[in-house]
């Protein structure tokens, strides 16, 4: 567990073995990889962006316990309704007071006792939402996606939580392209608008840290801009044009 931006955003989760048993593992790669969810501390409560994988359930509950005060309200925002984002909701609800669960998409409704709040943001646009009293985040709907996806931008800290994008950090020789395995459909698409959208998202915001759902984060304005440029380039190269 580590603090991403001066105590405002904390990274939770643990490591997995990235190997042939993992669908997003590039061929031949064998190493550990961080799988993350993030806690955003607000003035009167906290916002958890994704809930980590079930393999890390006990660790995440323990990490949350250290960061949360008893009875502190918690709101959950899901970047996707995929298993790696939502399966720990029931366990978290057993230990903490969850106000609401924000999610996007249609087929999958996250299982929770709290109020599920479905949110639809048109791809390529964003929406500011007060996800908990006193915490307004910008929900960005990127074109870089497989399933309905939200990136969560925290204007107060400059943290951008990017779900299944920017996932190549943490290897000895990070290769941007390695993080794009999940987006194989790019190879049959004109990816220029998708690449441009990545550039736009970073141009329009003061991004000071990128927190991906897996892989290590990128910290610092220059680093973030550089990574965004490289990702846009990798996306463009993967496509047909």
């Amino acid at each position: 567990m580590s603090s991403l931006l001066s105590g405002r955003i904390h990274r939770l989760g643990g490591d997995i073995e990235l190997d042939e048993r993992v669908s997003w593992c590039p061929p031949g790669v064998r190493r550990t990889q961080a799988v993350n969810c993030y806690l955003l501390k607000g003035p009167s409560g906290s916002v958890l962006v994704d809930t980590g994988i079930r393999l890390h359930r006990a660790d995440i509950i323990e990490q949350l316990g250290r960061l949360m005060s008893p009875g502190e309200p918690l709101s959950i925002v899901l970047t996707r309704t995929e298993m790696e984002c939502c399966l720990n909701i029931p366990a978290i609800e057993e230990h903490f007071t969850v106000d609401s669960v924000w999610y996007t998409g249609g087929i999958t409704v996250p299982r929770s006792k709290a109020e599920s709040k479905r949110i639809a943001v048109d791809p390529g646009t964003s929406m500011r939402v007060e996800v908990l009293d006193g915490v307004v985040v910008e929900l960005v709907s990127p074109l870089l996606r497989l399933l309905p996806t939200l990136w969560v931008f925290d204007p107060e800290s400059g943290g951008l939580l990017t779900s299944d994008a920017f996932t190549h950090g943490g290897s000895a020789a990070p290769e941007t392209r390695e993080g794009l395995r999940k987006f194989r459909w790019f190879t049959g698409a004109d990816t220029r608008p998708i690449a441009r959208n990545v550039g736009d998202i970073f141009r329009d915001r003061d991004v000071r840290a990128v927190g991906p759902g897996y892989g290590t984060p990128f910290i610092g304005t220059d680093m973030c801009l550089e990574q965004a440029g490289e990702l846009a380039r990798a996306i463009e190269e993967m496509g047909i044009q």
Partner: protein
Amino acid sequence: MNENPVKHDAVELRWLADGTYWLGGCLSANAQGQEVHYHVSSYLVVGSKAALLVDTGDPAHRALLLAQLELVLGERPLDYVFPTHPEIPHAGNLPALLDKYPEALVVGDVRDYHLHFPEYRSRFRTQAAGSRIDLGDREFRFLPAFIRDLENTLWGHDDGARMMFVSDGFSFIHDVPAAGGDGAAAEDDDEPVHLPGQCRLLSGEMPEPPTVEQAAYGTGRALYWTKFVDVSDAFGGIEAVLDTLPTKLIGPAHGNVIDDVDGMLRTSLAAHRKVFAEGH
């Protein structure tokens, strides 16, 4: 923003062919004031030796699914669970199924499942595309998923009922509320829908066959990326499989079961072309 209360309806199971059953249920949502449904289906294939379940259905239907299984299987065990891919509507009931049927194995492309269900890791068995499982008097074959979202998706085929199982593919056989209009809904809504009363119908039993426009509407919503990619090649692959594996029924996870395979292939391909032509 769109608060969208979803409730689930109890739906009876449907017998499709000898030893082949359509299980699961529908979820319903409110789309612009109108109640619409979408199937979250599982299919049970019962052979003389073993029984296999395609997709686990959604946790919202856990009790329903277990009851349906019991109804068909009675004292017989469930031997195999084949989640087509690790998403909640397709694999979310794995724990309940594996607890209820302690001998059952999880088969398919089982990458990632150890991250989601580590306590059951000893029960995962890889079945690659092309491999087969002998169910006794019938054989279940795993196929590549020609149209999919997640990388570790597989389709399947049962030679007993001559039925192909296509997961998120072909999920558009439904009426579209305010047909063709996109109304107030954002592009992001990914549910292919039908109206109440059209649950568990075969495509040929629907009041009218879907038009290319309706099919395209559902297709573009269910699989966002198909707006950017020409999937005509994928159809070549599907047709090649259909040439070698006779197929009378196609079972999508979220659409009506297709009993007019040739007609639906044509409509579907036209729909995909339309989505691609308009989508980028």
